[in-house]
């Protein structure tokens, strides 16, 4: 699963679709994750049945395995190898000498560190914020009695809405022009327009980050709420009745009962969101264009954006050796994501209650 997550799904995003691909991916994974627990329990019986059904399993898994091998595992291995051959030429597939030049160059490139800083902001700010907001909204949604279905639909609409429509709405709200919704408001209170989005050189850093944060919170909200809501509705109501009889304050009910009992869902959402944040690219392109900010600074470049920049260089006639650099950057990102995920899993193994 790890490998699959890190696979460069940016290719999918090349069509200019504004949906961050993480959304489509996570949605496919929901049933899988939820079944994980069952799978573990079934492991033993599965082992016993393996001998009998082994061939059947191999045959039925073969098509999927083949596709994974060709499109996922093979590229990962290639990426790994290419990153250690700084003079790899993708036109004639010649490797040249082995070396770690690509890594040293990437690590000494200020643009790479800008990309990492931006990514870090997404990971450290957007993710916790969006999870907390989603949790609070879910608990509120679950506590209202009347019109609950109505509000659920409202919060779930972004999930079923076309990504382009979603992006357009966002572009209208945060348009850098005077007619943008936020700018109109600013004008109303006597302020001056702010370049929120686009490729202008005048986008204030804080404004860009603000828009990215809002965008990613809003974008992932529906799915998170859906997962949390289904988790909440699975919690026995008697825990809450017991808490009420023992005069538990509301906040304590939330922190001592709801959050711990939701912890498997919270872990799942945290991991998928973290990985999604590490991979964020298409949302940046949607907001700030292909150059991810103005074309000199690339103010809002992300880690995946950085990989793409070099990959793009190759395909658009730049130096062919740039592919090795892109691969090195991809490998560094891979290692980062892996470390974070393991730390996360380890930390949660102490706190999550299944």
């Amino acid at each position: 699963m790890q490998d699959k997550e890190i696979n460069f799904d940016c290719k999918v995003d090349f069509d200019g679709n504004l949906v961050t691909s993480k959304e489509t991916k996570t949605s496919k994974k929901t049933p899988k994750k939820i079944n994980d627990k069952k799978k573990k329990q079934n492991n033993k019986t599965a082992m016993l049945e393996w001998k009998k059904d082994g061939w059947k399993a191999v045959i039925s898994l073969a098509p999927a395995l083949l596709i994974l091998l060709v499109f996922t595992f093979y590229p990962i291995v290639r990426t790994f190898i290419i990153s250690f051959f700084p003079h790899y030429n993708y036109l004639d597939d010649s490797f040249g000498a082995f070396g770690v030049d690509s890594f040293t160059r990437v690590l000494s490139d200020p643009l790479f560190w800008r990309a990492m800083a931006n990514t870090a902001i997404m990971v450290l700010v957007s993710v916790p914020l969006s999870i907390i907001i989603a949790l609070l909204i879910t608990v509120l949604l679950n506590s209202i009695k009347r019109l609950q279905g109505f509000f659920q639909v409202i919060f779930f609409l972004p999930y079923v809405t076309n990504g382009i429509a979603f992006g357009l709405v966002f572009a209208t709200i945060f348009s850098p022009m005077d007619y943008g919704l936020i700018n109109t408001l600013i004008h109303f209170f006597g302020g001056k327009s702010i370049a929120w989005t686009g490729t202008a050189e005048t986008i204030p850093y804080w404004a860009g980050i603000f828009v990215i944060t809002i965008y990613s919170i809003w974008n992932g909200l529906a799915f998170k709420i859906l997962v949390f809501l289904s988790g909440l509705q699975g919690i026995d109501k008697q825990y809450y009745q017991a808490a009420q009889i023992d005069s538990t304050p509301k906040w304590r009910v939330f922190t001592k009962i709801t959050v711990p009992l939701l912890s498997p869902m919270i872990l799942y959402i945290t991991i998928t969101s973290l990985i999604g944040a590490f991979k964020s690219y298409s949302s940046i392109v949607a907001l700030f264009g292909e150059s991810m900010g103005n074309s000199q600074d690339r103010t809002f470049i992300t880690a995946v954006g950085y990989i793409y920049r070099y990959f793009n260089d190759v395909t658009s006639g730049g130096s062919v050796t740039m592919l090795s650099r892109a691969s090195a950057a991809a490998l560094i990102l891979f290692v980062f994501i892996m470390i974070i995920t393991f730390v996360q899993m380890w930390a949660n193994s102490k706190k999550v209650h299944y």
Partner: protein
Amino acid sequence: MEVKLVNLTKIFSKKEGDVCAVDHINITIPNGKLVGLLGPSGCGKSTTLYMIAGLHRPSDGQIFFGETEVSKYPPEKRGIGLVFQNYALYPHLTVKENIMFPLENKKMPKKEALEKAQKYAALVGIENLMDRKPGQLSGGQQQRVAIARALVKEPEVLLLDEPLSNLDARLRLQTREEIKRIQKNTGVTTIFVTHDQEEAMSISDEIVVMNFGVVHQIGKPQDVYNEPIDMFVAKFLGTPPINILPAKVVNSKIKLFDDEFKEDVKIDFVEGQELNIGIRPEFVQIDENGKYEIHVEMVEYIGRDKSILFHFKGQESTCKAIVPSNLMVEPDSDIKINFNRFFLFDKEGKRLV
């Protein structure tokens, strides 16, 4: 504290129509007593309990704790302890944390809370399980934790909703003694819901027999057993259950199908009136000069006693009698019996004698 229910009523509105789960019940539970709320499944026991707890709002009627009317109070203001049917222990907290939870809500200092928790854990006999999670406990142990959690805030009233129904037969016997002991030791007014008549009879100071949301009879277990107010109560209490024989008044005599019912009945009957005669298995006595001849179908040994399955001539339903096991009775034979007691009910089930 004395608990008094006055005309307490609960109507659930559903799409299919209203359900009257509890129908104008009046019960007074004396201070410091253990009262068993007894009735078949779905008769409104839990609903009554939840109204006392404040989790359900009564549709009508009042609840008094002592002199205070608490009907409008939310659960947290009532000072009760409730043990749920499946305990509702917080799965992510240890036994200690579960028991301390209600105290922490009251912002009791940690040290004091811990001491209290330990005291009640010892009372229910789980002081060596304090660091386990509920998932690592047996049903009986979980149940004790739940009781400790309910008792630790030293409630005025303790409510137990079928607390033994998840336990196996042996543990159930043992635990019900335990509940009785704990209740005696703490002197807390306790309401105990169960559908198991034996359970209710064995530990309650008083039982309240309910059916379809209506209270049929309230009294000491033995009194209710000996003098049931109607056929429902008579049938609900006792194992094996009471035998009910349909009868009819013909020529001013009570007829049991072919046989005549040869007991003195000092009641004026209407000619043709239909009756039900209730005979507990232990009311049957084998007697060579008995008034009734019956056909024995089967004899079962049940330890100290022997149970006899028999038919009255012409009667369809099988009756059961309990006799001492040293009496010789052959299956498939005709014997004579007497009744040393009987209950007479009218067609609607109202007790006549």
